[in-house]
């Protein structure tokens, strides 16, 4: 009720939300892949060559952003094939299942959960394990996020959020907001009228500006 506007949240499933800024940024993350057939004259677009006429020979390793990979992925017309980024592979999955709370998810790709959910779109025999790992990681880190967000009042939280990925940061902010609202009410500031954040930066017009 006190929000000035409601941003569209990320989709976080097999489908993205078209209008969500988080999803748009997330789909810019790159995937390793291979060109399955020759891609004529696209070397320039994919960053592989300097001339506009160069084509990408079959079998080249490419780094493709997710939105492009999703569009080009087709089991019948084999244009490109994608591989899993290393954090979704077996080695890292065991790290997550051992102890998920110590991993720096921001460094691993700030959209670990969203990107992982999108990876499930590509047919891959490891999909059930990836989905399971995503869920379990979230569950193990939940306690930590809850405790840190609800106990850090009026402090610098940058150390706490440094290791969280974007989804967890949104949750952290929700927790902080709950805490701040409560503390603000308890201090009695809830009944004071304050300027809305949208108009706080408007300067007062000076009289002289209106003349002439």
């Amino acid at each position, binding site marked *: 009720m006190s929000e000035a506007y409601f941003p569209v949240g990320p989709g976080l499933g097999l489908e993205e939300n078209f209008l969500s800024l988080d999803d748009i940024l997330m789909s810019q993350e790159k995937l390793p892949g291979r060109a399955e057939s020759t891609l004529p004259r696209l070397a320039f677009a994919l960053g592989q060559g300097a001339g506009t006429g160069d084509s990408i020979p079959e079998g080249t390793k490419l780094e493709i952003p997710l939105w492009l990979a999703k569009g080009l992925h087709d089991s019948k017309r084999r244009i490109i094939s994608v591989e899993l980024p290393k954090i979704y592979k077996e080695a890292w999955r065991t790290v997550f299942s051992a102890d998920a709370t110590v991993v720096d998810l921001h460094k691993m790709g700030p959209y670990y959960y969203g990107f992982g959910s999108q990876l499930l779109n590509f047919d891959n025999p490891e999909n059930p394990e990836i989905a399971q790992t995503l*869920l379990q990681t979230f569950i193990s880190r939940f306690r930590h996020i809850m405790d840190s967000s609800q106990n850090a009042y009026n402090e610098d939280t940058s150390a706490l959020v440094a290791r969280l990925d974007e989804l967890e940061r949104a949750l952290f902010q929700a927790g902080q907001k709950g805490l701040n609202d409560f503390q603000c009410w308890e201090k009695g500031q809830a009944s004071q009228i304050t300027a809305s954040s949208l108009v706080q930066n408007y300067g007062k017009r000076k009289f002289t500006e209106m003349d002439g």
Partner: protein
Amino acid sequence: MEPAEAEFLAEKELVTIVPNFSLDRIHLIGGDLGPFNPGLPVEVPVWLAINLKQRQKCRLIPPEWMDVAKLEEIREQERKEDTFTPMPSPYYMELTKLLLNYASDNIPKADEIRTLVKDTWDTRVAKLRLSADSFVRQQEAHAKLDNLTLMEINTTGTFLTQALDHMYKLRTNLQPGESSRSQDF
């Protein structure tokens, strides 16, 4: 819901005052109040009591649970039990804040009462977090918590529902359902 809204709802609770003016029975939409006679205690809603107190027209009598011994007992019981104990008023936090802010001169040992209520609140919120964590960890479908008050639910509610939303979406990923595929050329 914000804390201010919960406080608004709490102001409907009845509290005893001793007015120093006289007034006949007044008829409000919510019900009748009064008559007010100086020196005779009368029950009014908290919003009216606070207003009269601010205009120095009455003296507030603290509710019978707002007493050091009783609150200590409640606090001890809260610490002993694993589940939530029923609180003397479903709006204990809001009433404490309102009465202690506006009428602390009418309430004996106001600071101790504030500390005791805060301790009880901290214990309850810690229990709530523990319960939320075990709920998420075991991926239960539904949980029932008795004797929670509105203020406690508000403070953790947004966070918990968002986290559960995310968990739900991650969980539906486990089922390899047929999502709508785009056209093949």
